[in-house]
């Protein structure tokens, strides 16, 4: 298979913003929206062939959506923009972009050309106030269909620059999920915006509870193959390779790989017991430790980003509630004390919050909530139609994916961490258990890492 060529040239890059914008990590519940950004439509470099026109349409739409959903910017409607097309920096009349109706802080523009199957994009980010270039990038890809990747890459660069490094962006992130296929339930991975779905399992069995490893190389999930009377704990490499962690009974569920990728937590039952507990082992299944040696159901573990704590669900008080314990089994304490049914806790990557679903005692539908771990303060994020469950944080801790039946069948949605800006990203079939991937490095960082590796050799 020919690998797609993915080249990035940095035309120039001035980090002028480091001083102007303080890193403000405390973004909850409202994301910072005080930066005004204009995203002018990219235009053809020379002539607009039909291919170029079609690719441009995708490029402009995806770039707008990526930056809008990042929730970092105020983005005035394009109808207020000056009409003059911007191909190069010399085409920009900065005073027009500072007119009172518009008055943006930053401006994105550029050009695109399709040549055979090859696509070349030049993308610019300018500080309108200082008239200085913040980013200038040339991307070349060998296949037209990779254009979405180019957009996501550039959008993440913009977010990284304009958030002064607070976020590395989520546009290149992916979401693993389950989808019903007849009697079977299979695991898929898609881009964070719902495009580019890829098959991970096609074994005809039931595959549940996908969760990413810290380096995004592996998905952990549980699998019940046809005619096998047991659940198995699988570690499936996304580039091939599979490891099954042996368990001694037919029940294993809800795995979570530790942030250091040294251990895996899951719910299982030892042969001498009749109730599920939380266990931790290394990734080969050695060194079992029981973290919740208590009668009753214990399930759904989630690691704190440091790996020192695990939140999980236990019904030891009568109904399923969220508890916290240190990774060595000490300091057990109850996190949520609301009654009703809680489940699917998911610890935010910045460590401050645990998202979960809650079902009030009188209802049978769930909604998504977030609790601040230190203060115990609870925020309700969803309400209204349908049951909304299985929240999962984005890698930048500013967004949450969840499943909901609000539009009829069970589908996957993404939203801001304050519950606003809800966007449905699956539409066909029955889909659930979204798991947002971890942070990925920017291409430059990957190249640096490769260089370092080569130098070390």
């Amino acid at each position, binding site marked *: 298979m020919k690998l797609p060529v993915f080249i990035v040239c940095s035309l120039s890059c001035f980090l002028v913003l480091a001083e102007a914008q303080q890193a403000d990590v405390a973004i909850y519940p409202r994301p910072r929206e005080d930066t005004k950004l204009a995203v002018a439509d990219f235009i053809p470099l020379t002539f607009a062939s039909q291919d170029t026109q079609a690719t441009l349409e995708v490029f402009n739409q995806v770039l707008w959506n990526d930056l809008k959903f990042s929730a970092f910017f105020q983005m005035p409607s394009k109808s207020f923009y000056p009409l003059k097309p911007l191909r190069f920096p010399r085409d920009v009349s900065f005073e027009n972009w500072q007119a009172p109706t518009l008055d943006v802080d930053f401006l994105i523009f550029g050009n695109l050309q399709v040549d055979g199957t090859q696509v070349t994009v030049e993308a610019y980010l300018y500080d309108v106030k200082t008239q200085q270039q913040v980013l200038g990038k040339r991307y070349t890809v060998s296949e037209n269909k990779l254009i979405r990747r180019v957009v996501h890459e550039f959008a993440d660069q913009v977010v990284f620059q304009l958030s002064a490094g607070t976020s590395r962006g989520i546009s290149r992130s992916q979401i693993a999920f389950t989808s019903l296929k007849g009697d079977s339930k299979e695991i898929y991975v898609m881009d964070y915006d719902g495009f580019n779905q890829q098959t991970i399992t096609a074994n005809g069995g039931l595959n*549940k509870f996908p969760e990413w490893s810290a380096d995004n190389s592996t998905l952990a999930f549980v699998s019940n193959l046809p005619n096998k009377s047991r659940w198995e704990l699988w570690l499936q490499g996304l580039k091939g390779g599979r490891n099954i962690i042996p368990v001694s009974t037919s029940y294993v569920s809800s795995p979570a790989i530790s942030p250091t990728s040294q251990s895996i937590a899951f719910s299982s039952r*030892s*042969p001498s*017991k009749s109730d599920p507990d939380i266990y931790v082992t290394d990734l080969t299944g050695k060194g079992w430790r029981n973290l919740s040696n208590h009668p009753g*159901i214990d399930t759904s573990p989630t690691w704190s980003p440091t790996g020192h704590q695990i939140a999980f*669900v236990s019904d030891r008080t009568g109904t399923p509630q969220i508890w916290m314990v240190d990774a060595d089994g000490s300091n057990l304490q109850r996190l949520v004390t609301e009654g009703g*049914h809680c489940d699917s806790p998911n610890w935010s990557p910045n460590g401050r919050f645990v998202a979960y679903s809650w079902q009030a005692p009188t209802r049978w539908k769930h909604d998504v909530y977030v609790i601040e771990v230190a203060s115990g303060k609870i925020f309700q994020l969803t309400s209204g139609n349908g049951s909304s469950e299985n929240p999962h944080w984005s890698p930048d801790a500013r967004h949450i994916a969840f499943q909901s039946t609000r539009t009829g069948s069970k589908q996957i949605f993404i939203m801001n961490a304050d519950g606003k800006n809800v966007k449905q990203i699956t539409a066909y079939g029955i889909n659930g258990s979204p798991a947002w991937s971890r942070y990925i490095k920017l291409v430059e960082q990957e190249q640096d890492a490769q260089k370092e590796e080569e130098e070390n050799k």
Partner: protein
Amino acid sequence: MKKNCRVRKLSVGISFCLLLFVSACSKRSVEMTPSSSPSQQTRSVSLPDPDHPSPTVEITASPSTINIGSQATLRWKSTDSSSLMIDSGVGNVSEVGSLVISPRESTTYTVTAKGPGGEAVSSTRVTVIVNPKPIMVQTDIDNLQQAIDSGKVQPVFFDYDKATLTHEAKGILQENARIFLQFSNVEIVIEGHCDERGTEEYNLALGDRRAEIARNYLIEIGGDVNQLESLSFGEERPFSSGHDERSWRLNRRVHFTIQR
């Protein structure tokens, strides 16, 4: 007997090395823990500390060999330890205690005692004899399938969010057990199911509890442990697809299928 000699030699060897080591380092007196009874597969190594006596721990299993599905008892006692942990899925335990276990495969249980005076470890192994799989006879499979299809073998139903057997459910299981014994060479899967109201994680666990409780009851009233497997499906396989109590009642169940 040979093995026991080796264990003794080993512990004498370790004791000797320790003696040499400690006397070379300081003039403190050295008190070795007495080596445990030679019939146990046990070793105990501890470093002396005049203020904190070294912890000791000892674990035994009786019987040490069982048939699959039968039970053995782990017994342990420890001194001078602040925490005691048994691996293989047992977890933290108190200083002196016992636990009835029923491992499905041969398992070594290692207990680790930690205290201010150091650490001590003891192990014991339970060997599990696994019977070869019974040969399934096709006519038996067909006949049992017919008994399931015709409703002679009935499912049992549960209250919302409960995994306890009602009086009625126990009656049904007694009748089912009688039928299963007629087909003792056919493996049966006890499937645990839930209604759609809980989350998927909770329901997979609840279905497991329901299946295990039915299986334990069947074994308690004379069922064959080798014939009965439990498996949870959570909310994945409802009898009825409706979203009301009439459907939910049918979906909170344990029912029986044949392992093919």
